[in-house]
């Protein structure tokens, strides 16, 4: 295996990110005081540069591999990487105030975010089962630590431990699946597997391997029944970490799942489609129903993210270009909605103390009308009320499902989003019609305000100029089916 210069160019964003992360780690270690803020600002800078690089690296043929076929770059990876980097940068940016107020702002956090991001980028570009695992674990190890980041807090450490144990189990399932695949095909490279499956009849053992592989990856996107960690971890982890978990890693895991199922296992679409249909339906239903009884907004958002994973999986279950492009669009819109909602949750403080109860939002419309209005818009969008962006996200995936004949799945989706509308709208009701609880602290800080306003503008006005995003998603999806 020889390392050519072109190999390095393709992996430039990842290389830069890895180097910069280690530099920042050094900086944090050797700079005594005030390192947290400097490292955070620099980390944001690093993410921005990485974003530019990731967007800028375009292989001449539209698709190129390096490191001996382990690493892949095409327009799908570009799209996913941009989403992940945007999500990471914004969630990191809005974490600062909260961390400082909770007095846990330390330089390790931005560094961990960078390493997790590195893992995500590697996941997205993985073109081999080994590369896949490498990326996944790089990301996961950072995430385990982040969940337990508030180490003096019992709930935070508990959530970190739970995530770690269950994550290890999921990794085990994944590895077992990968080894079965290797055993029956004799290769770990995606293209080789695809070629082998296209020409030969798939043996039973391979299908079992695939099932384990899907189970391991389903854990990462928090699809039912591999979702159980989500509510506990989302609730226990520090809120900025929860916000981070809910968006970036999810997008990366989806990108990986899409890549694995449409790439190496593309010829076996009938086989995995059944699993994904089940995952999608179960996730939508559980996400809709289980959230109804929740009183903690972070826990509610955990179920909400399970439900959204279900809707996105509908796009994957369809398994064609239209479905995948719907999924990508869904992820982009999901990013904006969750960023906004977690922005509000981060701003929920009463007399300097962070609060997480839905009842703490009571009467928000009277105490801070602007915040209530924004959260109401986010909730309406999550519930899928037109003309907000959330509606179009659902529209495209359901449309793809209907066009491909998955009527039942689309029906489950529509009905479960009707059920889910209940708990989204309940938050609106609490804010607008309940007797005011204690007012939330103000001001919320400029960073948060800007991010909130940005999300709001995106969600409200998406329907006016949907073409750039829709076109990008379609293009990205098209490269998977050539």
């Amino acid at each position, binding site marked *: 295996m020889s390392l050519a210069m072109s190999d390095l160019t393709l992996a430039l964003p990842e290389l830069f990110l890895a180097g910069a992360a280690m530099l920042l780690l050094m900086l944090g270690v050797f700079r005594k005081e005030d390192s947290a803020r400097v490292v955070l600002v620099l980390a944001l800078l690093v993410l921005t540069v990485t974003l530019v690089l990731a967007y800028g690296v375009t292989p001449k043929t539209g698709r190129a591999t390096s490191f001996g076929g382990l690493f892949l770059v095409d327009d799908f990876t570009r799209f996913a990487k941009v989403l992940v980097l945007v999500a990471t940068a914004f969630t990191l940016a809005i974490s600062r105030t909260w961390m400082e107020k909770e007095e846990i702002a330390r330089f390790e956090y931005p560094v961990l975010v960078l390493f997790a991001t590195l893992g995500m980028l590697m996941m997205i570009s993985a073109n081999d089962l080994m590369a896949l695992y490498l990326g996944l674990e790089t990301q996961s190890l950072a995430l385990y630590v982040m969940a337990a980041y508030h180490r003096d807090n019992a709930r935070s450490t508990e959530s970190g431990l739970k995530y770690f144990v*269950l994550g290890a189990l999921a990794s085990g399932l994944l590895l077992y699946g990968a080894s079965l695949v290797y055993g029956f095909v004799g290769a770990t490279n995606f293209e080789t597997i695809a070629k082998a499956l296209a020409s030969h009849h798939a043996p039973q053992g391979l299908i079992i391997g695939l099932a384990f592989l899907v*189970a391991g990856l389903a854990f990462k996107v928090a699809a039912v029944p591999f979702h159980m960690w989500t509510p506990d971890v989302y609730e226990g982890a520090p809120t900025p970490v929860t916000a981070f978990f809910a968006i970036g890693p999810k997008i990366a895991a989806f990108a990986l799942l899409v890549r694995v199922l449409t790439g190496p296992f593309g010829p076996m679409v009938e*086989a995995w489609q059944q699993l994904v249909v089940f995952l999608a339906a179960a996730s939508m239903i559980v996400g809709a129903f289980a959230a109804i*009884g929740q009183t903690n907004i972070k826990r509610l958002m955990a179920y909400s993210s399970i439900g959204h994973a279900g809707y996105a999986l509908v796009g994957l279950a369809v398994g064609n270009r239209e479905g995948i492009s719907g999924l990508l669009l869904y992820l982009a819109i999901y990013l904006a909605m969750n960023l906004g909602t977690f922005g509000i949750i981060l701003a929920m403080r009463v007399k300097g103390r962070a609060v997480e109860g839905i009842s703490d939002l009571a009467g928000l419309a009277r105490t801070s009308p602007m915040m209530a209005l924004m959260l109401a818009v986010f909730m309406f969008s999550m519930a899928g009320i037109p003309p907000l962006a959330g509606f179009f996200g659902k529209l495209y995936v359901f449309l793809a499902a209907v066009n491909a004949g998955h009527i039942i799945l689309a029906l489950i989706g529509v009905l479960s989003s009707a059920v889910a509308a209940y708990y989204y709208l309940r938050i609106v009701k609490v804010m607008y019609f309940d007797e005011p609880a204690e007012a939330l602290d103000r001001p919320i800080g400029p960073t948060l305000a800007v991010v909130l306003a940005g999300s709001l503008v995106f969600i409200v006005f998406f329907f006016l100029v949907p073409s750039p995003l829709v076109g990008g998603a379609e293009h990205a999806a098209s490269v998977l089916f050539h």
Partner: protein
Amino acid sequence: MMMVLAVFLPLIGAAVAGFFGRFLGDKGAQFVTCAAMGLSAVLAIPVFVDVALQHHAQTVTLFTWIDSGDLMVKWALKFDTLTAVMVLTVSLVSFMVHVYSVGYMHHDPSIPRFMAYLSLFTFFMLMLVTSDNLVQLFFGWEGVGVASYLLIGFWYERPSANAAAIKAFLVNRVGDFGFALGIFGVYVLFGTVHLDTIFAAAAGKANATLLFLGWELPAMTTLCLLLFIGAMGKSAQLGLHTWLPDAMEGPTPVSALIHAATMVTAGVFMVARLSPLFEQSETALMVVTIVGATTALFAATVGCVQNDIKRVIAYSTCSQLGYMFFACGVSAYSAGIFHLMTHAFFKALLFLGAGSVIHAMSDEQDIRRMGGIWKHVKVTWILMWIGNLALAGVPFFAGYFSKDLILEAAYGANSLVGQYSFWVGSLVAFLTAFYSWRLLILTFHGKPRADDHVMAHVHESPPVMIVPLIVLAIGAIFSGAVAYEMFVGHDREAFWGTAILVLKAHDSVEAAHHVPQWVKLLPVVAAVAGIVMAYIFYMLATGLPKAMATAFRPFYLFFLNKWYFDELYDFLFVRPAFWLGRGLWKGGDGAVIDGCGPDGIAAITRDVARRFGRMQTGFVYHYAFAMIVGAAVFVTWYMFNRVG
């Protein structure tokens, strides 16, 4: 222009008082409505002179309402003698009631609403009587129904008032259904709803038939009976009368205006207006006669034993309407309208007088707890005497002329039903005089039976209530004598012109003038006998009523319970309807639709949510177990579903 104003001024008054009553205040609303109504009444006089006395019948077309295929309906005001009489009566009585209401309702918290309703009612009533086609007539017909409903239920905090309002509305619905069918039938038969066109064609259709579900029905009889069902509902004739006594839940001025003087007479007006149709069907006329006479008897017997001052007068109204109908039934339409007019005066007078008594007695309505108050309310007492004299048909009061003529015409009709109605009518004249004097004596004479507290407060009503009474009393005394020659005397043919059609063979009014002397005297004798008997019963031998009631207990109970009509209807219609409604509501809507629909789904959702919540135990090994099970299910699935 005058005619249009006379009709539309009340509407303007109602709109102003209704929509801007809050800004105008009580006084302003009273002024606006009374002024509009007063002006309307004043305008009605030259209209009457022009149309009825100088015979300038005319139709004022306002604009087209419906123009759809063959159906052409215009808003138009038809003024002939019949209309002019009605407009004059309605607007005059209505104006008096408006003024009276200023005094009577002065304690009420929602005066503008009341005045607006009164004026709105008057507008609809005028619309009804001036209509030149059946559809507009129906508009006015339903409009007065709405106003009646609103006014009966005016004190909407009272459950009894609401119940009475709903009852009035529903019972009228039965009648209106017949009326509507009648209008449809007329359109089928004549191809138009325009009255003059229909009348011109009526004679030619006397033997026409209507085909209905394979039945060949005599067209004229069918149509007239259907239309008469409408009239029965509105005019509270036997069978559809049950709403009228209950309607006394409304404020007393309402009872006087709507449920005595005007709206309830709309049925009589309708039959008279449609006389060219009714004249073509002997059967229909016979039915009208029998229903009218029987109603008169029924209501009079019930009126003799009621104890609520307003209910006695209400049954009296019902009874008098019966007179008007059998007058129409024997083709003495002019006599019916004559009685309608005189009755409007003396019955409004009686109701308003009763209102004055109730006012004086601190809202007491039971005549058993009155008595001996004549010294304290002398004016009211005299006015009530005048009203009752007119009602009983004592000579030279208004009622004497009209009622006598009706009975004479019934006799003169020289038919079996005519004889029936004559004898029944004479008996009713006796009963009328009896219950009138029973009412008078129990209310005003004898020893006071109210407690001292009430008696100490007995007082005469203010002038604003008394003056309208005096005006009505003048009408009750003189209207009969003054109008006799015009309405039913020698001038009648010139007076009515083409407004009423009576076939030569049916001219019972002419025959009425040639009946034997004893027929002319009988009603008066009956009335005097009734008065004397009431005097004996309630002044001289006060134990007698109780003895009679015990001796003829079944009859007494039968009359006291209003011939058990309410109980019968309750059993036949109300209970089954409630039963059905409740069944559909609880069983159909509640259990099935709500249970399987919104409530059921919500309950399932809650339940499912709770189950899902319970699954989230917080134990890592549970979570891990779920994952393993999930993976196992995946694998097992492929064991049994071989793919690829």
